[in-house]
């Protein structure tokens, strides 16, 4: 069959043009897949959230704390197995932000038993050291921390009572490893007691940002949620109890409308590349007008002429698309490392690969459609008259 040969030979007729088109397609699809993966990673994080965990927070906002006295009352609610205080700390290490949380240290291991395990150190050692902390493997690698290292953090939302430039001192007692992709390996957990005691000494005892609940296996999340909310319906501080996924979704929406923004950029990139492809295919078709006339004179049908151009468009876009998607796959680990803890589990999902390749094929069909349609309708006498 001369057909594939003719397709390939025609694409190498103007090697630079083909190369530039394939190159820009590759870049566009690389960008698209990478942006798309940020969104799917955020979504996957929500999907991976445990149904066995719920979070109690103020109805007002995430930044309004709850009284520490609530904890004992929440634990009385049927279906609640245990609770854990959860306070985002938001301090800087050498001016670098990362996620730290003040938690009930003795309750943390059970709460996330399926999500994290210790790679080094022990929970017992952490328990014995009031300034002790557990840090994620990713974080430890990033800052080259090991067991016993001292970590000074400058409080931003919670300045040290002795002065805004006085550091909170921590000591690494354990390093954890995430057991699931979407659990951040860049977190740090420390004792609620240390947090509480230090702020009390300064005269402003802290409130609790949120309570993590671990439900009994047979508990019904909806009735637990209703019961907890009911408990504090009369104040002093009303609460809302939601599944962990919903709690995390707030942080995603804190990025503003980032998913929408990323989708818009990705769409814009694709629209631009579509125009570039249409342009290439129009030039390609024009170069081949006379050839198409000769082929038709020889007895090749209109369908063949149509197919010849569609095949060229599909080959160009398929090549560029495969290259771009492949690049996104190759780069995903590097990008995940660069994103660090902000997008735990950044990965190009198989459905993003399929979407990218599907879009490449669609680009080929759309950009090839008009020139191919014209090639199909081209009359031999007009084609042979061209360029004479």
């Amino acid at each position: 069959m001369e057909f594939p040969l003719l397709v390939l030979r025609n694409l190498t007729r103007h090697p630079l043009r083909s190369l530039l088109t394939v190159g820009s397609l590759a870049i566009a699809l690389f960008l698209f897949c990478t942006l798309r993966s940020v969104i799917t990673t955020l979504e996957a994080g929500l999907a991976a959230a445990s149904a066995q965990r719920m979070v109690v927070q103020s109805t007002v906002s995430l930044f309004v704390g709850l009284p520490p006295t609530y904890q004992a009352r929440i634990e009385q609610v049927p279906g609640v197995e245990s609770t854990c205080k959860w306070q985002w700390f938001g301090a800087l290490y050498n001016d670098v932000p990362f996620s730290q949380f003040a938690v009930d240290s003795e309750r943390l291991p059970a709460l996330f038993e399926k999500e994290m395990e210790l790679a080094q150190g022990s929970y017992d050692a952490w328990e014995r050291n009031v300034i002790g902390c557990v840090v994620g493997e990713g974080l430890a690698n990033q800052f080259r921390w090991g067991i016993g290292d001292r970590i000074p953090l400058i409080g931003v939302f919670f300045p040290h009572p002795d002065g805004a430039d006085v550091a909170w001192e921590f000591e690494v007692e354990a390093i954890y490893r995430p057991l699931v992709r979407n659990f951040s390996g860049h977190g740090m957990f420390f004792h609620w007691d240390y947090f509480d005691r230090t702020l009390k000494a300064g005269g402003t005892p802290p409130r609790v940002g949120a309570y993590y609940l671990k439900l009994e296996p047979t508990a019904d999340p909806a009735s637990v949620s209703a019961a907890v909310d009911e408990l504090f319906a009369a104040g002093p501080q009303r609460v809302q109890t939601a599944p962990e996924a919903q709690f995390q979704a707030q942080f995603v929406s804190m990025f503003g409308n980032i998913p929408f923004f990323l989708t818009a950029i990705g769409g814009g990139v694709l629209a631009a590349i579509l125009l570039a492809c249409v342009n290439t295919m129009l030039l390609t078709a024009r170069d081949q007008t006379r050839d198409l006339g000769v082929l038709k004179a020889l007895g090749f049908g209109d369908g063949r002429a149509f197919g010849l151009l569609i095949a060229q468009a599909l080959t160009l876009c398929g090549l560029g698309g495969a290259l771009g998607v492949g690049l996104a796959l190759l780069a995903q680990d590097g990008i995940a490392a660069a994103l660090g803890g902000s997008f735990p589990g950044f990965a190009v999902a198989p459905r993003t690969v399929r979407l990218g390749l599907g879009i490449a094929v669609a680009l080929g069909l759309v950009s090839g459609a008009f020139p191919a349609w014209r090639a199909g309708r081209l009359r031999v006498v007009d084609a042979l008259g061209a360029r004479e």
Partner: protein
Amino acid sequence: MTEPMIRVRNLTKAYRRGGETLTVLDRLDLDMERGQFYALMGPSGSGKTTLLNVVGALDRPDSGEVFVGGADLMALSGSELSRWRADTIGFVFQGFNLISVLTAYQNVRLPLLLTPLSRQRRREQAMHALELVGLADRAKHRPGQLSGGQEQRVAIARAIATDPDLILADEPTGDLDREAADQVLELLGRLSRELQKTVLMVTHDPLAAERSDRIVHIDKGRLGGLEEPAVAHGAQA
């Protein structure tokens, strides 16, 4: 007598340009016998190419009858005409005949792809056609690496690859120097003499026309006289 290769009756084709109507073919009648080498001559713009295109089913007339090789071209659909061309006609155009991105061999094989022949048979027939025009050793060359005369001979090889009955050639020597033109004319003559092809060649070169069996004159879309060339082929052979 057997039926003629080409039988045209009352053929009319006109172009409308602005308000004016330009009649290119004017109630033209024409018969051409099988196995003969015809030269179609006439001034520029007299309708030679148009007539050739109608006979080769590349163009449709406004009215009239066109029978070629027994087929009623006016009764066939576009896709039927495509298939019919592949079976019946070999074309040689004035220039830029070949697909520049394919080799000589690949060009010659092109029309064979539309036949049900095996790969092996296609190869043999394409190479045979190239041998016939004396260019088997250039099979792997691209058109850009061939001289104008060689290109035109490859085009002739392509035209005869499927063994069609009728070869239509529109000014095949128009772009060639004398020597190359002679080789092409010699080839076309051999096609009719040795392979019993009907050859219809448009030319306005009187020397080229001399090489044919019959010269047909056309002027303003009407046929003039039919004449025998001064030099008889019998005497040459």
